[in-house]
């Protein structure tokens, strides 16, 4: 190899190495400088004859209300100032269970989590080794986000402090880390690292990895969240969002984020709530602008207050049950099976498929193959049902779609995969309030012709326990297919199932 080509090779290696170093470095990518308007809002505005100038006005108003990705935060209105309410202050209302605050128990968990996370840092502070704190912080995952917090704190100690000053500073610094609660900017940074790749910069489910997922990630901007513990399709409580982060949504691409501390998760909840409120405000503003033909300050503030109104008072809508949960007796389970298959009561079978209890007392069915949820695929030319060239069976396609416009199929209840949780009260809440944004109805809120509740408390629990019993594994670990353990008397359903159209979720297509 001659000298020149050696040099060229050397340059190439250095370039490749620096490129790799740059692309693999854990330096956070620069935040997008502004939020964008959603495509649907832009279309709505343009259809109404508005142009870039008006779009800019909406963006400006939203930026005033909710800040930018690098500096997110709510606009504090004059009334709030008078009331001493400031949602930008970390854990701004400890002890007060108003919307957006953390409860005493949550705060205790945050402190406990921080003590574990910052154990090394707190040890250095207690030992008086203040110069070691920076390194201890750097050793903690995402500890670099707190470097500035510490630098400012340390600077406050001043030159040549007295022994009393140092003692007071130690207590102060320890408390700062124990009660650490991320700012909006810190949470936005964590969101960019962990959530943005699916949920997108504005929470519009348009991140780069979103399109590979099935089911698709949630678009927060409409304020609709599928899994809450509330009735009336209310906006979620912070506990609901926190649970989604801590538990994940099982069997979807949304994993649990338990590996983060409670403080970080609460910070993410704050930020998701901000994005969601921003999205709702955006859509309402656009609608108001189209009807009023101009954007005014009053309209902006009114919309802002409307959205805040939607996001408060959720605690009154929490679904609970008075008294202990009834035991799942065989009588109750049989009652549940009746309700499940009764078109005038539960009507569950129409989507989830027939279900029952066999002679051994084992529940079976509810495989998500109900006739209402699927339709035959028809040949466009002849109108005849299309048969699969492989199986000879009639091809099926899902008939339902959710509020975001995605095709969805009913849950296979035999799998025992419950996205909101598998506790009896979780299933009770799902049957009572339905699933927001989907065809799953709120049966608990339904009334019959005379205006009485469709299902009594006992009926509700019968249904809940029956649904839970469908996923019982009679060999203990669920290796034996349920249909071999439980009786299967519906040959027709089988053919329906194996031929159905693109299933939304992996577990439905395993049969």
């Amino acid at each position, binding site marked *: 190899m001659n000298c020149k080509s050696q040099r060229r090779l050397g340059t190439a290696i250095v370039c490749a190495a620096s490129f790799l170093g740059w692309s693999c470095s854990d330096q956070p990518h620069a935040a997008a400088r502004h939020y964008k308007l959603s495509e649907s809002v832009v279309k709505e505005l343009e259809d109404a004859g508005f142009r870039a100038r008006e779009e800019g006005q909406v963006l400006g108003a939203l930026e005033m209300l909710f800040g930018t990705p690098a500096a997110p935060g709510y606009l504090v209105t004059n009334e709030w100032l008078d009331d001493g309410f400031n949602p930008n202050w970390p854990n701004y209302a400890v002890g007060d269970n108003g919307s957006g605050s953390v409860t005493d128990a949550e705060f205790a968990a945050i402190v406990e989590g921080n003590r574990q996370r910052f154990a090394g840092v707190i040890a250095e502070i207690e030992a008086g080794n203040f110069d070691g704190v920076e390194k201890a912080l750097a050793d903690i995952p995402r500890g670099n986000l707190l470097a500035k917090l510490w630098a400012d704190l340390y600077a406050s100690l001043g030159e040549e402090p007295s022994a009393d000053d140092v003692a007071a500073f130690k207590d102060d610094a320890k408390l700062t880390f124990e009660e650490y609660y991320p700012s909006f900017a810190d949470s936005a940074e964590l969101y960019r690292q962990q959530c943005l790749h699916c949920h997108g910069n504005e929470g519009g489910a348009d991140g780069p*990895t979103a399109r*590979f997922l099935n089911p698709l990630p949630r678009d927060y901007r409409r304020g609709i969240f599928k899994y809450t*513990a509330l009735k009336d399709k209310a906006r979620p409580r912070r*506990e609901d969002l926190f649970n989604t982060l*801590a*538990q*994940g949504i*099982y*069997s979807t*691409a949304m*994993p*649990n984020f*338990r*590996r983060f501390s409670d403080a970080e998760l609460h910070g993410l909840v704050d930020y998701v709530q901000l994005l969601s409120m921003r999205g709702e405000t955006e859509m309402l503003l656009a609608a108001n602008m189209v009807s009023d033909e101009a954007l005014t300050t009053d309209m902006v503030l009114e919309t802002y207050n409307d959205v805040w109104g939607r996001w408060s008072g959720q605690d009154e809508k*929490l*679904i*609970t*049950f*008075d*008294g*202990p*949960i009834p035991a*799942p007796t065989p009588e109750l389970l049989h009652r549940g099976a009746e309700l499940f298959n009764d078109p005038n009561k539960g009507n569950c079978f129409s989507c989830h498929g027939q279900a029952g209890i066999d002679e051994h007392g084992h529940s079976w069915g509810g495989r998500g193959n109900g006739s209402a949820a699927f339709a035959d695929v028809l040949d466009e030319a002849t109108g005849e049902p299309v048969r699969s060239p492989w199986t000879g069976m009639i091809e099926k396609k899902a008939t339902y779609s959710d509020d975001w416009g995605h095709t969805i199929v009913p849950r296979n209840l035999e799998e025992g*995969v419950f996205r909101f*949780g*598998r*506790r*009896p*009260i979780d299933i*009770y*809440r799902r049957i009572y309030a339905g699933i927001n944004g989907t065809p799953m109805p709120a049966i608990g809120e339904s009334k019959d012709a005379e205006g009485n509740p469709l299902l009594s408390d006992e009926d509700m629990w019968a249904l809940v*326990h029956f649904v*839970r*019993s469908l996923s*019982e*594994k*009679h*060999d*203990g*670990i*669920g*290796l034996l297919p349920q249909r071999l353990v439980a009786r299967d008397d519906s040959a027709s359903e089988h053919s329906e199932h194996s031929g159905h159209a693109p299933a939304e979720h*992996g*577990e439905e297509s395993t049969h």
Partner: protein
Amino acid sequence: MRFLATLLFLALLVFGVWSFQAAESFGAWLPPHVSSFGPDIDALFKLILWMVTFFFILTEVVLIYCVWRFSKKDPSKAHFTHGSHKLEMLWTAVPAGLLLVIAFAQMGAWANIRFPSAFPDGEPVAVAWASQFDWRFQYPGADGVLGTMDDFESAHDFVVPAGEPVKFILRSRDVIHSFSVPQFRLKQDAMPGMAIPVWFQVDEDRPGDYELICMELCGWGHYKMAGKVRALPRAEYDAWVADQQAQFMSNGIEE
């Protein structure tokens, strides 16, 4: 040039031997073991490491000698050889013998970890479900039977009693995953459609949180498929189970 090349290979030898001797003090070696499998697995690891070290030094010394001896310009004619039958026998028989040594040395450890006869008696404490990209642990409820309606689930955290054998069933909901806790020296693939019994015992004096990772590339989110094994003293474990069972039967008022 000849001197430099020899020095380069010598440096490689010295660095290679030094690096594995010093790695432990840099914290770049196996994490300290905390389970009953630890001593066996680490002894096997050391045995194989010393074998490899011996042959590394041997081959490096031969290499260094050859670099030094044959890089000198030699005008004499090269001579042709058909090879040496004796030498070939030797370099086949010695590695085969060593493989046999390893094969016999590991049998006890393998049987202890994998053979059904070595499994602790009693029912499994939980079913560990691996799915893309989540660990979830299904515990029997108040009736003590797995697969019934009162089973509760724990996401991310696998809570087990320390100081006693823990048997669980490993399952996968979708693709192949691998249950791996480096500090337990335990790794087991989870296969879809199979229920694989696994056991371990955390040392009684080492309760604590241990990292659980998926060790089989399982999809785009493989890197975030983390979990935690929390080994608690028996009393705390019982209290945790009771608390989870109570939470499972919550009526939504007290949560």
